[in-house]
């Protein structure tokens, strides 16, 4: 039951992804065509406000609801990992018009075909797990 709060935060996430049309394939297309400010405004403002949150976490002004310090796990370093993995992700993002969050939101919108994309993405994660010692990081 302690996970119910994550369910509620997820509902808010699903609503904002849908209402701001972030789950629309067209919004991703126009972003990569530089024909609209919409997605840049969303990501940019989220990052700017996020920086303030991170600052408050780091300065220990804000702690978890249980009073523990908030540690932000650092991202793994590695040029190949980030650049090649990122590029492959970008190819898929622009083709599907959805990254992992919006994919699940589209299930709620009852888009049957997105299940093929989610199946592919899960399979992709599986293949990564199989091949990860053989590819550069």
């Amino acid at each position: 039951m302690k996970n119910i709060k994550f369910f509620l935060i997820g509902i808010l996430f699903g609503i904002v992804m849908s209402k701001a049309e972030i789950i629309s394939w067209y919004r991703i297309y126009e972003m990569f065509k530089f024909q609209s400010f919409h997605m840049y405004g969303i990501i940019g403002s989220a990052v700017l406000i996020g920086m303030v949150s991170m600052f408050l976490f780091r300065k220990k002004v804000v702690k978890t609801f249980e009073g523990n310090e908030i540690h932000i796990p650092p991202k793994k370093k590695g040029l190949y990992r980030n650049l090649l993995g990122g590029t492959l992700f970008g190819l898929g993002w622009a083709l599907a018009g959805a990254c992992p969050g919006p994919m699940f939101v589209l299930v709620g919108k009852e888009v049957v075909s997105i299940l093929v994309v989610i199946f592919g993405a899960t399979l992709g994660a599986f293949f990564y797990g199989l091949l990860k010692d053989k590819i550069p990081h």
Partner: protein
Amino acid sequence: MDFILQPWAWYVAGPVIAIIMFLLFFYGERFGVSSNLETLCSIGGAGKFSNYFKIDWKQNKWNLMFVAGAITGGFIAANWLTINDTVALNPQTVKDLAEIGIKNAGATYLPDEIFSVETMISVKGFFILLVAGLMVGFGARWAGGCTSGHAITGLSNLEIPSLISVIGFFIGGLTMTWIILPLLF
């Protein structure tokens, strides 16, 4: 109420996403959707094939609950909070899409040329959906994060690996949009 039923502007959505990230950290977790794909692999028994998936997936239950919420939120928004499914696009975008074979851009959230059931059950359509997913899943786990983990959380935290990943997102996204998509339809 009308405000909620209309499409939300970027300056509403961006701050709401920042609040979501804040809440996840406040409740002792983090913002990252693509790690759920690995959790799904672990639940499906992928640990038999690679030690990478031999994790105690129950510790990621909170994130699965987040995903269940996202699906529910998508259902709520589609059924009760949206009166009009059109997406107001730049006329240039509509024109560009018509030229590469995607008609009626913006009439609904998604193009039929990719997402209709008829397309899905065609060989080419199914293949496009599957490959798009494969690239997203493999790429996200290789890079160690997707839009939520790298572009939002990582950039907020001024992480160099996330900056490099986001540059990669754009190299891939621009290549797909400008070079590959025009060849597909």
